[in-house]
């Protein structure tokens, strides 16, 4: 399994309705993107980390591992804001460090808010409920097959990769090219062969075009949603108050 999905399945909030966690996480995500980065992004980041590590019991090491790559992208991308292109050449951008800092803060806080949802809500809980928010059933079914199949294909990829390495398939650049191409085509063949076997199996069970799965009937917690809305509103108010009093 992928680390984020594995953590989501083992999360302390696993049994909560996805809508509960969506209100909280996406509310904070909205705050991170829409509020002034200073102090908004900092407040959002502190709030998310407190909730994730203190209440949702998200493993800190896994959270850091998931967050560091997008944070690295944000930092690298923000470096371009430090320089400016003028008619006489390249120079330092006025206010560049401030803009770069704000960008990293906003992106980091937003990334953490999204990870709060990802680390507490398995996709298998979200997908069957998407039809209730207007996503066509056919699209949801295709997404559900994708979700279930990609773990098998990842496993297949890892095994083929290991076998290729064992046959010195990664030894030279030429061999590596051949191995990657073979891997890509083998994954395609595996994916289609498995889809056909699934199709035959389902046909024998009276497949009528819908993939019905059992969904745990977990009620939406009005208390949790109310507390989430209150917390998001508190972050908004605190940001605006702090912004007005800070120099």
């Amino acid at each position: 399994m992928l680390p984020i999905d594995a953590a989501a399945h083992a999360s302390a909030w696993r049994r909560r309705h996805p809508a509960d966690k969506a209100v909280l996480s996406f509310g904070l995500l909205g705050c991170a993107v829409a509020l002034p980065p200073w102090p908004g992004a900092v407040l959002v980041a502190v709030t998310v980390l407190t909730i994730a590590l203190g209440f949702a019991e998200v493993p800190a090491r896994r959270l850091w591992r998931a967050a560091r790559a997008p944070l690295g992208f944000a930092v690298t991308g923000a470096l371009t804001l430090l320089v400016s292109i003028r008619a006489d050449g390249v120079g330092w951008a006025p206010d560049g460090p401030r803009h770069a800092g704000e960008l990293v803060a906003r992106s980091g806080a937003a990334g953490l808010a999204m990870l709060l949802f990802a680390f507490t809500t398995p996709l298998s809980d979200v997908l069957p409920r998407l039809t209730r928010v207007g996503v066509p059933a056919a699209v949801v079914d295709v997404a559900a097959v994708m979700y279930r199949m990609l773990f098998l294909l990842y496993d297949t990829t890892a095994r083929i990769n290991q076998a290729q390495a064992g046959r010195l398939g990664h030894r030279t650049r030429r061999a590596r090219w051949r191995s990657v191409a073979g891997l890509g085509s083998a994954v395609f063949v595996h994916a289609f062969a498995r889809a056909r076997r699934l199709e035959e199996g389902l046909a024998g069970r009276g497949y009528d075009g819908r993939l019905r799965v059992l969904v745990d009937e977990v009620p939406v917690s009005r208390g949790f949603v109310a507390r989430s809305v209150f917390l998001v509103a508190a972050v908004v108010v605190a940001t605006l108050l702090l912004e007005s009093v800070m120099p």
Partner: protein
Amino acid sequence: MHIAEGYLPWEHAAAWGVASAPFVVHGARALTREVRDRPENTLLLGASGAFSFVLSALKIPSVTGSCSHPTGTGLGAVLFRPPIMAVLGTITLLFQALLLAHGGLTTLGANVFSMAIVGPWAGYGAYRLTRSLLDRRGGTMPLDVAVFAGAFVADLSTYCVTSVQLALAFPDPDSGFPGALAKFGGIFSLTQIPLAISEGLLTVLVVRLLRQSSRGDLIRLGVLTDARPVREEEKSK
């Protein structure tokens, strides 16, 4: 390369979401029709989407010596057509955001526009154009060249659009949008032209192998026709 979560200002994130929506809705309708007419294709489409996801996670040796990941949009567009790729690409990007923390939910619209719409359409256009120009020559060369052109253009156009998206969001304080485009485009062109060549070569190798191992699937997907001449080694089998 995905634009990270929260990287774009909210106005830009919303605007790219609105720009992507018609293509994704059109693709969703095409996919719904396909599944209604042939319910068994749900599984094949799911397999195609999972293949696209895994393909984008493969590490390819870059011409510059480092490793990188293919976008997979060119091969996806050649195999499954751009409207279907708009939906499969959107689902893939959503999964990448939630399962791998690559990209994000607020930047989903921008990433969909570059990777699931412009990339596949530009790549498919280059593929069709090259095939129509070279097809009369016969043999396997036209397909190889067309597949290379499709994957190369899809990869490069994806990154050109990403550069435009970033330049619009972060215009240069002195030279505005053109200066920012030169900055982002300059950085991407250094890394992406070699990567686009790598992805083009990899895609040609993958399609060559598929022509041997999955000819039936390629015929069913419309990449090959029964009448197309087969390779010499296939004739001798």
